[in-house]
């Protein structure tokens, strides 16, 4: 059998590929930066369509996705629980609207709750180490490296959006996601609006996971954005607006 130039090069190419591909392939997914551009916005916000959400009673997909994405522990003892996105009754979420004679549609139904990423966040004002701060695009960030666990922010947040790690969370995480660090005993945590996903051009995990299309994420500063149009066409409320925190999670009712 004779090997001509062409066949030789083909073989050589295959051989190189066989040697290099596993190495490059394995590492490319991680070391190299993602190909997608980061999502950029001026005022990120979330719009929750309660009616759409209630079409899937008992659904926990958004909460499960968040737990998986961010290694949020499932601690059975409610005194120690850690919450990023969770449910509570309408009456608890909107105490001012909780009269039994109003909202008969909604009264007994659950409401999805998460950090409101306030425009005027009280948690940020009280943090002594700047472990939490508001980014220019509106995300209220946490820098877990700086959190000293003083819990002032927990006291300041009127929405109960922040949790303290009273116990080591690791035993309560079913499958560890190596791409997002856990937290330790002694630090505070909360929803980060999937800031690490936005950096890779991906929308928040809860929004992606929702089978009902009940969660809408977008830039309110952009008049063309779907979230802005939803707010223009439908009636929306925010939690405890009278406190002046300017929450940026809107509920279509």
């Amino acid at each position, binding site marked *: 059998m004779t090997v001509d130039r062409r066949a030789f090069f083909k073989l050589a190419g295959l051989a190189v590929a066989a040697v*290099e591909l596993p190495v490059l392939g394995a590492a490319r997914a991680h*070391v*190299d*930066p993602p190909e997608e551009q980061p999502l950029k916005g001026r005022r990120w916000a979330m719009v929750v369509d309660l009616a759409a959400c209630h079409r899937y009673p008992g659904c926990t997909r958004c909460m499960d996705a968040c737990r998986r994405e961010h290694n949020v522990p499932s601690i059975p003892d409610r005194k120690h629980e850690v919450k990023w996105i969770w449910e509570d009754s309408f009456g608890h979420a909107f105490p001012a609207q909780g009269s039994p004679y109003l909202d008969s549609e909604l009264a007994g139904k659950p409401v999805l709750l998460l950090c409101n990423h306030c425009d005027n966040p009280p948690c940020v004002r009280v943090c002594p180490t700047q472990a939490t701060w508001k980014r220019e695009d509106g995300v209220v960030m946490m820098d877990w490296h700086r959190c000293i666990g003083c819990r002032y922010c927990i006291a300041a947040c009127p929405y109960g959006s922040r949790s303290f790690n009273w116990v080591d969370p690791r035993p309560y995480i079913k499958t560890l*996601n190596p791409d997002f660090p*856990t*937290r330790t005993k002694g630090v505070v945590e909360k929803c980060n609006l999937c800031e690490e996903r936005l950096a890779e051009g991906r929308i928040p995990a809860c929004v992606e996971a929702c089978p009902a299309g009940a969660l809408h994420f977008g830039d309110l500063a952009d008049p063309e954005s779907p979230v802005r149009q939803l707010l223009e066409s439908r009636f929306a409320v925010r939690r405890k607006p009278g406190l002046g925190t300017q929450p940026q999670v809107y509920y279509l009712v």
Partner: protein
Amino acid sequence: MYDAGKILAGLVIFLLLVTTPVWWSFAMGAEVRAPKLVLPEGRRACVLPTGEMKATHMELLNRWRDLAVRHGDRVMTTWDGRKVRRSLTQSCLGCHTDKDKFCDRCHDYVAVTPYCWDCHVAPRGGAS
């Protein structure tokens, strides 16, 4: 000189005692070896020249941490033009895949215990 003999004998004994650690380890044949590190296969270079990495990777990591988390600047361009994620687990451990036989070996030798792994999850090679 008074008591020259006693003083000299005393000095000799003193010197012997003071140098115990040195001659003792020679006598016992104890040997200190630099740790054997497993370097990544199929990779030419680190994110900084090797000498700089050895000396300053802890400071580099602190910078990466602040740039990535606080300034949203998550991509680094190396001196030879490669783009790398600023990530402890995805980059450092993306190339140095066996933490046990690289980071930990050297850290055990120099007796440092970074607390990063209390939170950051090493893909494999275990915690600590």
